């Protein structure tokens, strides 16, 4: 007889954000068919994909994985991790794999693990461009061959297909590179014959765990139960619950159109979706449809390196200087550019004066009695960035502007040392759709034995 329900435990919004042990145990008591966890996001910006680093700490990821691997190995609940290491490139996957191996070594675990990579070579993208198979996701601009050549790292978001193939290997743990967020929660249910629209919509909620509950939290566990005609959500912490509104509102989160949510190979259509409150702080969702796309597209993400950054943070309290800050900063910038023959980015962030919203600030003229100033320099190498930042700081500190009566120094420097070398700077340069004939071929799977 076909399976009538499929239970998925989502321990946390991002692997490494943590969860209470009690919530996780409550979830395990409900005998889940799967533990799914999303580890990624583009929200932290382009740096992490560029540098090949995670935006979560190693110790926090290890702590979460200890619980999840114990469930997978000791209690035989399969586990799928999406977008390993935050961005899902090879370095991120290997970083996560090293943590898994470390835990296995310490606990004496032996299990087979499938690893799915999501890196895309520049050649693959260039070849697809030649065949007019790459298009921007508006408002991203069209890309050029140069843009692709300058990419440091490119990943593609995998859909369900590579994960379905990995499930055939019967591995206890599947570790995915860049992955469409709902997939780790949805793929095994799709394989068991459940409706893909409902499975992916449930995954869409579960990938953020208790963020969709109320009160919301990025670090608590929830359970989704998929049926043939709908799915139900419940909090695994009695202090939270799902409501109709909290669940419906979540479909708005970080999306531009809540009725149509595009992903690899198709779109989730919520035009006919119903959200119903059930007892016990649970919610039932039904009516969501998956509309396959033809041709199949995957989203590419790529970044380029812009340079190296140095910053200096200081306060300004002198009312005369605060009153004419824009002209003074312009004059200082000009002097630094001229003296050092520097043409790269020289930026001033004035907190207390349109520092957060810039040109979009509606209250541009409301003054503050003090300013927080961040001086920022981006140069081709760190040494040059440091040198320009240092010169910028000292020039501004002693700048003799018209009307000045405080002649000892213009800045309340926050720290000693006053300047901070921030390292590499990256920018998003690829955020495009690429048509593929075979949604599996981009994402190679390898099966490895993990042992102590």
């Amino acid at each position, binding site marked *: 007889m076909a399976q009538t329900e499929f239970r998925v435990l989502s321990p946390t919004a991002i692997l490494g954000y943590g969860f209470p042990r009690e919530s996780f145990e409550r979830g395990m008591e409900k005998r889940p068919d799967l533990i799914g966890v999303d580890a990624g996001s583009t929200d932290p910006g382009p740096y992490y994909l560029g540098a090949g680093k995670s935006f979560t700490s190693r110790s926090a990821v290890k702590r979460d994985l200890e619980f999840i691997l114990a469930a997978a190995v000791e209690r035989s609940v399969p586990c799928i991790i999406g977008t390993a290491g935050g961005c899902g490139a090879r370095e991120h996957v290997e970083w996560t794999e090293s943590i898994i191996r470390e835990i296995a070594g310490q606990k004496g675990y032996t299990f087979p693990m499938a690893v799915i990579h999501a890196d895309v070579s520049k050649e693959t993208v260039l070849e697809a461009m030649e065949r007019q198979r790459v298009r921007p996701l508006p408002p991203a601009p069209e890309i050029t061959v140069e843009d692709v050549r300058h990419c440091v790292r490119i990943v593609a978001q995998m859909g369900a297909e590579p994960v379905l193939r990995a499930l055939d290997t019967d591995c206890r743990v599947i570790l995915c590179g860049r992955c469409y967020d709902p997939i780790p929660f949805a793929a095994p249910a799709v394989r068991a014959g459940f409706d893909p629209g409902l499975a992916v919509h449930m995954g869409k909620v579960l990938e953020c765990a208790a963020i969709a509950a109320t009160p919301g939290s990025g670090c608590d566990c929830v359970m989704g139960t998929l049926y043939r005609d709908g799915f139900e959500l419940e909090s695994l912490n009695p202090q939270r619950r799902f409501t109709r509104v909290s669940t419906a509102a979540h479909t708005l989160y*970080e999306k*531009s*159109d*809540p009725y149509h949510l595009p992903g690899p190979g198709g779109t989730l259509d919520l035009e006919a979706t119903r959200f119903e409150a059930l007892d016990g702080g649970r919610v039932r969702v039904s009516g969501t449809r998956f509309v396959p796309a033809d041709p199949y597209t995957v989203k590419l993400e790529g970044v380029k390196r812009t340079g190296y950054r140095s910053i200096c943070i200081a306060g300004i309290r002198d009312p005369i200087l605060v009153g004419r800050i824009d002209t003074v900063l312009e004059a200082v910038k000009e002097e630094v550019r001229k003296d050092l023959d520097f043409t790269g980015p020289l930026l001033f962030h004035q907190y207390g004066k349109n520092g957060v919203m810039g040109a979009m600030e509606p209250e541009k003229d409301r003054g503050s009695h003090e300013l927080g100033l961040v001086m920022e320099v981006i140069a081709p190498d760190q040494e040059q960035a440091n040198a320009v930042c240092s010169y910028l700081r000292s020039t501004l500190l002693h700048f003799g502007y018209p009307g000045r009566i405080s002649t000892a120094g213009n800045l309340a420097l926050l720290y000693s040392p006053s300047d901070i070398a921030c390292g590499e700077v990256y920018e998003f340069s690829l955020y495009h759709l690429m048509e593929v004939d075979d949604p599996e071929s981009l994402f190679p799977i390898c099966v490895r034995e993990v042992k102590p």
Partner: protein
Amino acid sequence: MKTVPLTELAAVIRSKNAGPYELTIDILFKNARHYRYLKEIHFFTEELFARLYGVGVEQVLNLVYFDPASAVKCTLVRPMVSGTPGDADVYGAQQHAPVLGLRVPLEEWP
């Protein structure tokens, strides 16, 4: 016409990235009746958001009324791509303030 501050009727007013190139603003109402009234009179428009943020209306990508959550959502082109030198809000999470100052008509409510 009588008006009330939007903050009295809204449970949530927030902004966030929708991918690195877009900024999306959500307004969730406490009461579906208030939401429905404002939807009926087309209070929230692309022009209103363009004005609030001092951008051209072509920078407003989408305005949606979402009945299941009694919510209005408006998506703008990010003035700078997230994390680009000069961008000061990588997550786009502090761009909602202009909406907080709105007042909305009260006409039909007791």
